[in-house]
């Protein structure tokens, strides 16, 4: 007869068990930013549809995008866009079989986050210094 009482063994470890590593955090961020962009790209759609719809609609969208909460969302969208782009570039490099070594993949991870923050800062410097 098989034992029917619950086995006293450790459950499979999950996220909270592991010390975060740069590759793991970048992997999670790649999926999170990808999912965010799925909905974030609606910001571009809304802008174009409003522009085609007329002056009033475009004014409304401009007012929303110009408000502090609108700017905050657009700032997040900009970062997600660049982060997912650089994360994707990293995956394209890996597709060739290159840079899988410990040092190389750590460097790629840091380059992804530093690059995405840098590009976002550059774009928003252009937005705010007009």
């Amino acid at each position, binding site marked *: 007869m098989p034992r029917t009482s619950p086995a006293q063994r450790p459950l499979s470890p999950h996220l909270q068990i592991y010390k975060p590593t740069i590759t793991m955090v970048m992997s999670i961020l790649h999926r999170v930013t*990808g999912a965010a962009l*799925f909905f974030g*790209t609606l910001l*571009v759609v809304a*802008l*174009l549809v409003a*522009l*085609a719809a007329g002056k009033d609609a475009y004014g409304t969208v401009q007012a929303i995008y110009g408000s502090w909460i609108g700017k905050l969302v657009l700032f997040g969208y*900009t970062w997600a866009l660049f982060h997912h782009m650089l994360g994707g570039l990293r995956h394209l490099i890996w597709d060739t079989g290159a840079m899988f070594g410990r040092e190389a993949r750590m460097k790629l991870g840091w380059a992804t986050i530093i690059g995405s923050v840098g590009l976002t800062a550059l774009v928003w410097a252009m937005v705010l210094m007009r």
Partner: protein
Amino acid sequence: MSHNPNSIRTPLARVRGLGAAKSGTGHFWLQRLTAVANIPLTFAMVVIVLMLAKLDYAGARALVANPLVGILLIAFLVSAFVHMRLGMQVIIEDYVHEEGRKIALILLNTFFAVLMGLASIYAILRIGLGG
């Protein structure tokens, strides 16, 4: 590859050679193709949106009506929406295990991407063609 005469696989299934995976490298390839296209097109989209931010309504319409700008925007939207649809499909397949719910979400995912793509492209064409 040698063919087992006792195999019950149809000749067509053998030629397709896909087995239990049911599909080949189509998803993977289109995902990579649009990923590569998205890199320059996203930079183009960001530059266009930055330019739009500095223009009034008439100026913004004139910019989008420019053929180069319109075509770059449409290219970005097509590539981005195809890529988004593929990516969200993988997320659904990873986290939704109940077959009915999974198929429903994958259908919705496609409808959403196609509708959003059509809406934005229609808007650009309407501006560009003077509607």
